């Protein structure tokens, strides 16, 4: 067994038993990062020197018995999280030289617990994309088949976990950006309830939808990571002040008491046969574990993608107004006058997908269209949320596909943004409703690509989807399979 093959909890155990040191583990992971990064392109920045120094400090804590489950664990985070003194690009040319003066709360919490940062992970530019192809630092590749996308926008996070370059990773999810890449790369990915994890220091895309969450090798690791980053933060006034449970304490409770909803609108005819097969097998597995299935309806599902692409782009056009070349980031040298400087800075600094979404959002907010598009979308959002509230009065969790197909080829959808947007159909409603969901590995396509399934929970009930995912893992081995890379 190689060190880089160990789960977070197994590595913690090895640290505790003094079988492996954090310096050894960090060295092994960094070697793996360097060996594979040309092929996978999962890292934008590697912080090797700082990582070794953190690992040495962690080993001193371990030697003195002062440790917690994250002490000395080598991991990496999406390049959307501000890291004090470490370049943070958000996958964009406009921030290619940006070194933040402070850190995101979620990274700060991991750092305080002794986690070792290996570097910053590739992503779609400003988290806008479903394939990681919009990154200004080149596409990230799927470790299971490097001609395919890893998913997006947290593509680097999922690919680095699947390629065993990192023990775990943090990503963000606005419309599926943790769950979809987790499904495509065969790892576990959890989008917590909106407000569960602080967004302070996370570069904003669509502020009413963005949420931070872990990507890991199994559900136990996911529970550890979520427990570490969850909680109220005075610096994020939308984070919610409810107690953080011990997510690992309830993992073994099984699913015998659970009613699992199958939303009929998600089980559409024309679903990819490989995804259908995975769903059927997952239903059978949960049934064998003792769960009861109930057919439910989320009647406004068909409107979710449209609603999302109005609300998210409107918020993005507002959030991204700050990139004007005045205080930080790229500034055009070709300009004459202030407005021209801002315009040229933005035109040179943003890539095509970011420009497209800013344009769509600006259009939706512009005079004459505001009520017809933006306010209308917010009203439909209410209808979608009500669908979930009604459904959760009948069931405890829901089981659905994550993505309509396994990972597609790099370049396949790049010229057809609408087709790209529609690939988020099963993940977007969860963000609009603000609730939590997890993608767990649940099978493989005939050509060997991972396929996940999604468990959706009630708001602030991450415990139940985690324990359902854990129960599933005990009787399946999909999460143990490793990409041959």
């Amino acid at each position, binding site marked *: 067994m190689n060190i880089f093959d160990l789960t977070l909890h197994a590595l913690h155990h090895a640290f505790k038993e003094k079988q492996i040191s954090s310096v050894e583990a960090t060295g092994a992971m960094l070697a793996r990062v360097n060996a594979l990064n040309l092929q996978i392109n999962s890292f934008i920045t590697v912080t090797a020197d700082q990582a070794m120094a953190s690992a040495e400090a962690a080993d001193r804590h371990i030697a003195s018995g002062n440790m917690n489950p994250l002490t000395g664990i080598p991991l990496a985070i999406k390049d959307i999280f501000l890291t004090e003194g470490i370049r943070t690009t958000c996958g964009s040319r406009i921030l290619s030289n940006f070194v933040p003066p402070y850190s995101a709360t979620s990274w700060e919490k991991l750092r305080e617990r002794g986690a070792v940062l290996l570097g910053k992970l590739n992503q779609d530019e400003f988290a806008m994309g479903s394939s990681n192809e919009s990154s200004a630092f080149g596409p990230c590749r799927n470790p299971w088949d490097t001609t395919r996308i890893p998913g997006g926008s947290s593509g680097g996070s999922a690919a680095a976990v699947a390629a065993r370059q990192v023990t775990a990773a943090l990503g963000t999810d606005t419309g599926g950006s943790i769950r979809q890449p987790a499904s495509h790369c065969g790892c576990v990915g959890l989008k917590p309830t909106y407000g569960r994890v602080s967004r302070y220091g996370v570069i904003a895309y669509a502020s009413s939808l963005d949420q931070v969450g872990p990507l890991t090798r199994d559900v136990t690791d996911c529970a550890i990571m979520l427990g570490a980053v969850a909680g109220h933060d005075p610096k994020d006034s939308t984070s919610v002040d409810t107690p953080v449970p011990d997510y690992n304490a309830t993992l073994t409770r099984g699913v015998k008491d659970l009613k699992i909803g199958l939303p009929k609108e998600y089980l559409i005819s024309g679903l990819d046969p490989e995804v259908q097969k995975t769903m059927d097998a997952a239903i059978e597995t949960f049934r064998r574990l003792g769960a009861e299935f109930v057919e439910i309806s989320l009647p406004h599902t068909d409107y979710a993608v449209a609603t999302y692409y109005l609300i998210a782009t409107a918020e993005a056009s507002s959030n991204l107004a700050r990139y004007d070349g005045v205080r930080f980031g790229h500034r055009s040298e070709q300009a*004459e006058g202030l407005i021209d400087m801002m315009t040229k800075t933005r035109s040179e600094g943003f890539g095509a997908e970011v420009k497209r979404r*800013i344009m769509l959002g600006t259009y939706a907010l512009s005079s004459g269209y505001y009520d017809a598009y933006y306010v209308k979308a917010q009203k*439909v*959002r209410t209808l979608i949320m009500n669908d979930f509230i009604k459904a959760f009065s009948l069931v405890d969790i829901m089981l659905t596909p994550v993505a309509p197909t396994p990972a597609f080829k790099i370049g396949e959808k790049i010229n057809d943004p609408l087709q790209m947007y529609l690939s988020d159909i099963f993940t977007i409603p969860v963000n609009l409703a603000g609730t939590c969901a997890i993608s767990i590995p649940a099978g493989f396509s005939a050509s060997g690509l991972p396929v996940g399934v999604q468990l959706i929970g009630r708001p602030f009930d991450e415990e139940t989807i985690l324990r359902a995912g854990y129960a599933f893992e005990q009787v399946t081995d999909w999460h143990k399979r490793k990409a041959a890379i």
Partner: protein
Amino acid sequence: MKITLADVEHVARLARLELTDGEKNLFAGQMDAIIGYVEKIRELDTEGVIPTSHAVPMENAFREDVVRSSIGVEQALGNAPQRVDTFYKVPKVIE
């Protein structure tokens, strides 16, 4: 509904983006397809439905009004593309 080149130019101006002719043509076609798709929400009757801006309903988040330390001027200006003394420098605003 048809997104015209003039629409694209108008929106680009609002968004402070300068597009090439190629980008304008591309975006006109793509925005037309996307806006055409999202228009489906108009089918729904939303009379009397309250718009949702945030999934978690909350009131203002207040804190005590106390002085706390913040990052210093040097750190704040650390990423400035251009600066003079303790100021950001920008092109001349008033002619």
